[in-house]
């Protein structure tokens, strides 16, 4: 399972304040703690706080001076994404493009040029479709575009869009079916990713909803998640699910082993 740590996001007040005051300490702290918790990528999201590419570069540089974990640039604006990718020393990710032509045609070539991964969310002009077929249609379009631009399939992540369970309960089963079908779109398939925390938006028992859904989604083909890597129960559930799916060899200390690996 590829875990993308969601915590460096200016939607959180501590990150917002750090970004506004250009105080690196909290960013360094979050980068280190998420890396220690097992994040494979660290997502950086400036939210509504800034649209200045230099601010993104500032964040990228702090994170990569602190840890070696690859960085996920959370923006759909090529004017931010491009300089941020250039500032990244190692492997990076673009989070994200939609299935709209003007985005695909700008962002996928950037991913190809920088050998970066890219998340394509199954959303078009009309927004994110709620049914299975709409998700598949957009997913296929993203896959085709990635293929045409020469993106390595291992660098493609398709995100069929998690919606809040509390408000759109019928969505969850559509989403599981879409994951199942998208993971069979090609051999080898692209990665299938989700922003897991969206599932529990405004709900009680957020952590329980997130981990239960994550495990169900893993069983039908999900192999990446933008999530709260500080949620120990979530990570323990991932470790257990990977073993149940026979992706990892069992040993008695498997939780500890998962963190070591």
């Amino acid at each position: 399972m590829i875990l993308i740590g969601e915590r460096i996001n200016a939607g959180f007040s501590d990150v917002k304040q750090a970004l506004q005051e250009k105080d690196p300490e909290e960013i360094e702290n979050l980068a280190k703690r998420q890396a220690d918790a097992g994040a494979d990528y660290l997502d950086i999201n400036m939210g509504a706080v800034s649209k200045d590419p230099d601010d993104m570069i500032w964040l990228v540089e702090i994170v990569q001076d602190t840890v070696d974990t690859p960085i996920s640039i959370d923006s759909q604006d090529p004017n931010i994404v491009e300089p941020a990718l250039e500032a990244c020393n190692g492997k990076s990710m673009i989070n994200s493009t939609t299935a709209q032509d003007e985005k695909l045609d700008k962002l996928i070539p950037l991913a190809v040029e920088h050998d970066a991964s890219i998340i394509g969310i199954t959303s078009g002009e009309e927004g994110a479709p709620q049914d299975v077929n709409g998700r598949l249609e957009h997913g296929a379009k993203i896959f085709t575009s990635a293929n045409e631009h020469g993106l390595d399939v291992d660098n493609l992540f398709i995100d069929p869009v998690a919606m809040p369970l509390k408000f759109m309960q019928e969505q969850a089963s559509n989403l599981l079916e879409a994951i199942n079908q998208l993971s069979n779109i090609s051999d080898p398939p692209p990665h299938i990713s989700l922003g897991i925390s969206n599932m529990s938006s405004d709900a009680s028992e957020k952590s329980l909803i997130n981990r239960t859904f994550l495990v169900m989604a893993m069983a039908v083909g999900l192999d990446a998640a933008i999530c709260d890597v500080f949620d120990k129960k979530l990570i323990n559930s991932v470790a257990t699910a990977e073993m149940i799916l026979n992706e990892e060899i069992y040993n008695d200390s498997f939780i500890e082993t998962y963190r070591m690996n």
Partner: protein
Amino acid sequence: MQIPDVSSTWENEISSVTIGATEEEGGTRSRTITIGGETTMPYLHFEGTMPNRPVLAFEIWDVRPEDWPPITKEPFEDVMGNPVEWAQKCEEDFDPDLLSLRLMGCDPYGEDRSPEGAAKTVEKVLEATTLPLIIWGSGDEEKDNEVFTLVSPAAEGENCLLGTITEDNYRTLAALGKADDHKVIAESPVDINIAKQVNTLALDVGYDLENIVIFPNSPALGYGIEYVYSIMERTRLAGLKGDRLMAQPMLANIGGEVWKTKEAKITAEERPNWGDHRKRGPLWEATTAFTYLQAGADLVIMRHPEALNEVGRKIDRLMDSGGE
């Protein structure tokens, strides 16, 4: 007809483990031996690399092994009971890659030799030989901990391979290996889950995974070899796929297993229709070794010189010209 390209790409490389230390490196060995480092399944040279040729070691005991069948004792008859001379003879006459010394004399149910005596034996063997050395205890966990407490520092600087750590007994030897810069053998009883657990436990007490060689036990041909074959294959696949707790070189220690089977040791006089045991026995040992090499063994410890020679030639062929 065009043959399809079936090569896979793997995320991870098997770790390389070096045994022995030359004078420059603080030891007294004439050379070092490195095993592991593969980026592919065994001998698939079209797919990845096997930078280090699998190696063969001769088994030596500190005491005369009364229960070895006569044909395994014959080549060493004049030196058995004297581990120094036995080791010298192996090195000079038969040219193995390494020597493997088993301190069976320390067995509390046998001669119960002292840890001090064992440390002296190790020192003398190291003085008299130049090849990298593997050192095994008698197999009694409690006694082995006492023995290695003196043997490990006695061999300090020589970068030996010490065995074994197990699921129930790993702290002492891991700590000694770390303190005295030795490599260790992680043993598991025909059980891949325990193999992974032993490595986890060793890492947990601060022993570096890069210094471990996996020993999943080595039943002889006809006695469960297929179980360990599949364990070694799964271990190697997991290691190449990125499980760093399974990405270690592996060893097979086959002498004791092969030479207790009736197929290897019953004489032609006892069973005429089985053919000449002088050919059959070494062939049984060699075939067992071939099997483990195909499964991914990086190091095989053997007893009979003819079997060792035959397996050495086989490795040459597997490593040469793309393994054709």
